[in-house]
């Protein structure tokens, strides 16, 4: 018996000890790769295009209504989100943007900062994986674009070199210093970048032409980045912009129909597009549907969120014949016959009609769905659902299955921007080249848009809210007509010195609002950041 017991003990101890097998506690990630694995796998296949794709996807934030584009547009004189009784109060986030009373706790201010710097990180990280020269250039272009947006919004850009320890606070590039860095980056990569649409490349990839357009933006805004309250414009910068514009002018023309550039198939028919963010209908991409959801009333087709409006002063800057006011663009999906023949792009004023049946629409309380010119930051009264002029920047993708994922690529850079930037650079002291003038450039655009030819061109009107009159066309107004709700307005207004001026819904505001504050969360973790003055 005794030895049976002993063998039992021995057996148990063997079994038991067998299970002890002290583990080294090495963590298995299972569905993701460790840094070492990623390094070896990506290097083995010498294909970092998967990493690069994540960088492009990082730019999808621009497509949503509540991120970078909100900060760039809703703070300007051409977009706002009125509180409509129960809707769109959202703890006041929209009102403070338009009224210039935001602070460093604002969710959009924090979210955009993180989103863009995430792109800066991901692009830099591509460089750790031995990309090809062309891939490295693509990554650096996307990085330059993200850094430029951070600079534009916040005036300071935290920057890490490839491989830096993420637990350490990185250095911060400020104002003109950041502008210089971005320009040097663009010049360094331009030759290596893939070809642009003018040479058969897709607009949704970083390309030589896109680098050119971004360089022009940098030259034009450099003075503002050095001193936003009183920008100066260096003639050399203006001339550099003009030289680039001349070279692009040989590669692109202005479209006969501006809306083709915003149609679901704009990757094919949008001939002005130079840099876009790709969406594939029903399959992949960003939140482009926000372009119509954010402004459509619930009872329209498409149904929307009944939010964003523009201001009547903007609407009044268009001539009746200007196609940029809106056209009846036939539904590319063929779903909505639009028997009433109303405009399906551009501004929506007055009674709205069902695009399927042609019936006059009503709001949720049974009143006519007729958008009013008047709008207040905080709506009250029985017509609060219908106040404010609405705007469709993109041709609505009505194709079945594309509701959550429209096909329209999101447009960053368009050739008409090059034209107007060239005209502006000439007016700001640059030397015209190639026989064009500011006037001829502006008129070449206006002719395509169905607008009357200008007799002369100036930078801006004394009252920024007033329309152009007497044949004198201002660049600032022309830019608004051409790029309404495209995300450029705040930058343009700052460069033209009208950002702080009063408009129908806001008084003159303090100079501190020329910059957004550094978000409190970011400030707390990086001592190299300093809060922007006044916050």
């Amino acid at each position, binding site marked *: 018996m005794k030895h049976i017991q002993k063998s039992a003990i021995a057996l148990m101890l063997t079994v038991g000890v067998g299970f002890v097998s002290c583990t080294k*506690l090495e963590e298995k990630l299972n569905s993701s790769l460790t840094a070492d694995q990623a390094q070896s796998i990506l290097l083995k296949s010498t294909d970092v295009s998967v990493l690069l*794709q994540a960088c492009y996807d990082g730019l999808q934030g621009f497509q949503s209504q509540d991120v970078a584009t909100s900060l760039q547009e809703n703070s300007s004189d051409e977009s706002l989100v009125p509180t409509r009784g129960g809707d769109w109060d959202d703890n006041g986030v929209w009102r403070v943007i338009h009224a210039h009373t935001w602070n460093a*706790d604002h969710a959009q201010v924090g979210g955009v900062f993180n989103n863009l710097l995430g792109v800066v990180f*991901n692009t830099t990280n591509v460089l750790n994986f031995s990309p090809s020269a062309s891939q490295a250039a693509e990554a650096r272009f996307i990085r330059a674009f993200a850094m430029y947006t951070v600079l534009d919004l916040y005036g300071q850009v935290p920057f890490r070199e490839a491989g830096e320890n993420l637990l350490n606070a990185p250095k911060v590039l400020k104002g003109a210093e950041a502008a210089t860095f971005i320009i040097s980056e663009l010049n360094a990569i331009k030759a290596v970048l893939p070809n642009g649409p003018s040479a058969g490349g897709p607009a949704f990839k970083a390309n030589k032409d896109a680098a050119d357009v971004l360089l022009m933006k940098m030259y034009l805004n450099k003075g503002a980045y050095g001193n936003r309250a009183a920008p100066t414009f260096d003639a050399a910068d203006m001339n550099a912009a003009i030289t680039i514009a001349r070279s692009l002018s040989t590669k692109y023309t202005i479209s006969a129909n501006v809306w083709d550039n915003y149609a679901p198939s704009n990757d094919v028919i949008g001939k002005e597009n130079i840099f876009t963010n790709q969406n594939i209908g029903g399959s992949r991409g960003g939140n482009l549907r926000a372009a119509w959801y954010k402004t459509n009333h619930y009872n329209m087709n498409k149904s929307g969120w009944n939010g964003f409006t523009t201001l009547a002063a903007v609407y009044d800057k268009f001539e009746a014949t200007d196609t940029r006011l809106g056209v009846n663009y036939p539904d590319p999906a063929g779903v909505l016959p639009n028997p009433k023949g109303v405009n399906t792009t551009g501004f929506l004023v007055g009674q709205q009609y069902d695009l399927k049946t042609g019936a006059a629409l009503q709001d949720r309380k049974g009143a006519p769905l007729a958008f009013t010119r008047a709008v207040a930051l905080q709506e009250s009264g029985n017509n609060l659902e219908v106040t404010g002029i609405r705007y469709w920047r993109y041709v609505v993708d009505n194709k079945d299955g594309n509701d959550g994922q429209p096909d329209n690529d999101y447009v960053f850079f368009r050739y008409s921007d090059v034209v107007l930037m060239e005209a502006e650079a000439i007016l700001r002291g640059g030397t015209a080249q190639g026989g064009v003038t500011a006037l001829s450039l502006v008129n070449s655009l206006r002719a395509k848009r169905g607008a009357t030819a200008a007799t002369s061109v100036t930078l801006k009107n004394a009252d920024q809210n007033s329309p152009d009159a007497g044949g004198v066309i201002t660049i600032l107004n022309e830019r608004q007509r051409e790029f309404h709700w495209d995300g450029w307005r705040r930058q343009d207004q700052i460069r033209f010195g009208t950002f702080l001026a009063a408009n129908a819904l806001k008084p003159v505001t303090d100079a501190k609002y020329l910059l957004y504050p550094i978000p409190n969360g970011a400030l707390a973790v990086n001592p190299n950041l300093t809060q922007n003055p006044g916050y």
Partner: protein
Amino acid sequence: MNVKMLARLTLVGLFACVLSLFSQAQNKTVSGKVTDAKDGSPLAGASVVVKGSKTGSQTGADGSFKISIPASATTLVVSSVGFGSQNVDIQGKTSVDVSLAATSDNIGEVVVIGYGTARKKDLTGAITSVKAKDFNQGPITTPDQLIQGKVAGLQVINNSGQPGSPTTIRIRGNSSVRSGNSPLFVIDGIPLDGRNARPGLNANGIGQTPDANPLYFYNPNDIASMDVLKDASATAIYGSRGANGVIMITTKKGSVGAPKIDFSANIGQNTVRKKYKVLNAAEYKAALSSYALTSGNDGSDVDAQDAIFRKGFIQNYNLGIGGGNENGKYRFSLGYSDQNGVILKSNLKKYNIGMNGQYKFLESKRLSLDFNLLAAHNTDIGVPVTNDAGFQGNLVGMALQWNPTRALYKSTGALNVVPGESVVNPLAMSAGYDDVADITNIFATVGLGYKLTNNLDYKFNISLNTQTGVRKATEAPYITIPGVEGRGFGFYANAELNSQVLQHTLNYNKQLTSALNMTAMLGYEYQKFSYKGSGMSAQDFTNQGDVSFTSIMQNSSAASRSIYSWNDPSSELQSYFGRIGFNYEDKYLLTATFRADGSSKFGANNKYGYFPSAAFAWNIHNEGFMKGNNTFSSLKLRASYGVTGNSSFPAGSAQSQYTFGQQSIALANVANPDLKWESTKQFDLGLDFELASGVLYGSVDYFNRNTTNILFNFDAIQPAPATKYWVNLPGNVKNNGVEVSLGAAIIKKKDLQWNAQFNIAFLSNKLENYTGPAVLTGSISGQGLSGASVQRLTSGQPLNAFYMKEFMGLDQTGNSTFRDNGNTLYYIGNPNPKQLFGLSTDLTYKKWSFVANFNGAAGHDIYNNTLNALIPIGNLGSRNVASSLIGGGVKESLANPITTSTRYLEKGDYLKLANLSASYNVGTLGALKNVRVFLTATNLFIITKYSGFDPEVNTDKNIGGVPSLGIEYTPYPAVKGFNFGFNFNL
């Protein structure tokens, strides 16, 4: 893994052992009954042993025993835990009845501690043990509900009234700013993972459905006791998982004696405890005319809440078979429960099987083998009641908003659905939404033990827990939610949760001198957890007929399809631990514990954490100077101090992870190689007492918990691959409080007994020395509230402090006014109760007995997001509004914006009669013994000023994983009901 194989083989073998135990040889039989001297009630589980031998038996539930003994035996020793021991002469007798006197009701009992058990009188830590007889009554779905209100300092919130709804459980308050404030659950010595394999669902347009309760696989009827470990002396042995307290669940085991069957059945019915007060048709019409609105009266008269709520039928059946002899015991159990929820379609079916055995082998009985198998299958039919839907998408919200003058059905009998309309008919939503989850849980443990010497025991446990869940959900294309309407939606997902536990323990017990006893335990434990799954969803099915979309996912449009799979980083925990205890003359007790936890989750620079504790107890009543004192039969002072940890951050946070997107790979996180556990230091001072008369007993505890190295998902330093990363931040979460438990035997007569237990905890909670920016949580959902939040974590405030505008009433135009015009937000409320209390009382008169269990909380606030967002005044003319908005002094403007403010912050104080039960002990009925019938009413009444469905609510409104607390948003409403049942033995 061969571990699994071994477990399976062992189980098969053991089942064979069970069967062999049914017949035994005998030489003389004595039978009898053991009763409580106090009232003559039967004593179950009393031990009956032949004096001077190991031959023995135990009494059954009716107190009876039957024992076969050597013909030479003359004396039986009869004893029971909490009662004295008695020698009974059996010479010439075949039948004896014994009545035992209680020694001291509560001091002699055995409580479960980490990796062992202890007599309550030897405890140095703060542990509250709740036995089955004291559990809450009524239709209990999950084990945690059994002890709600029973333990001082334990808060159990039923998050909603949905069958199988999760509960929010806090022991001694919130200590972590992150999720993971739940205590560790340990079943029969095996720590659980704490997650649930029901796949998450975020169906188009309706938001996130709430999680299921991680314990809802365990049959409350299989549980013998639950022990709540509160102070560091008790919890530090669980190291990095012990900081939130530990709840030990002990399942029922067989007892020595002939095989016995016990059966119980009950049926019942639940209804919604309280409907939300919205306007009825007449009130609605009056409101329309008072606001001069011409539209909005559709001429019907309906109550949409009545339309979606129903009486929920409940049935429960449990069968147990148990028995054993001196060589082994076994128990086998079956359970079936079918619970209809009070919302149309909602249902939870549970099928439970339990099987356990404890066997001794060899002549010396030194070898022991235990096994425990708990298997369950749950079929959980969900409803579209989500945490974060907008004004559409939540069934309860739809019903609250439905215009009461608008017909739910057309005259044709079809549902009144207008295509393209933003208002959704709740009945169409209910009819068009299906959500079925099938989850199987297998929990199996095998233990081998060997008594190496008389003082030294070795035990090896291996346990596997496998959960698999499959969930299928569909939305019909006629539901008028954008993205669903005209397209439909199908969802099919599965998840798999696995954990393994290996334990080796050595227990040593030696009387060193006549005065000094030493106990010691040394252990090793290895735990491994993994969690994975996959899913697919699609839309645009051409089939509009009777075939479920989830059966024909290929019928969808290619563009609408989405597939995903995931496999979380597995985590391993390797631990070494020990405990040593000294007992000097039963006067001075000293316990020290230590645990070293190594975790694969921890950063490379902090692989191991160390968690010590020490405790001292002084049995004052055993001192010489107390001799002759007749006041106290027990008086014990306890003090303990120790360190515990909380490591509930996601595995994989310490190292870089490159994750896969659609045709892309990106670095997804900021790795933190310094990442480690959150550390809680806890001091506890307690006093246990019992009056000699036995009339009054209780405990008082003061505790002070200080949590440091706070685990935080904090702002990453940009540019970074993620916006947040896991870090241990400096700062302290301080919880302190006083807990009082009192029990009284108010009447102790033969035919009439009346007992009462009361407990109360006074709690205080604060975040200190945190220097980062305030962390937002408590997101508020609904139209006009995008991005809104009402809670903050910031230094100097309790966790989840409410932060919002202060409402100052309506102005003359009917618009809200706020202090400082709403430009300033204030810290203005606290969702953490300042007091938690529970009261239980039972009264027995002859064969009747009555039990009532109350619980409550006070000193906290609840944010009513339902009222804020879904039924505001602006709805008038198209949707319904809350009754409270009509008829006030000032007529509220229809354009008054929806915004967060103290207008919707309400006092959460409540006291509820959670259950009231009456039972009658029929006794023997033919072959049936111990027949008992009972009737239980749940949530019979509640005292509260809270205007929402129920003050016991916690809708999950976390932001980025920072948990919220005390917010109601269109939850599945709380229920009340009754059930009737009976049980008997065979």
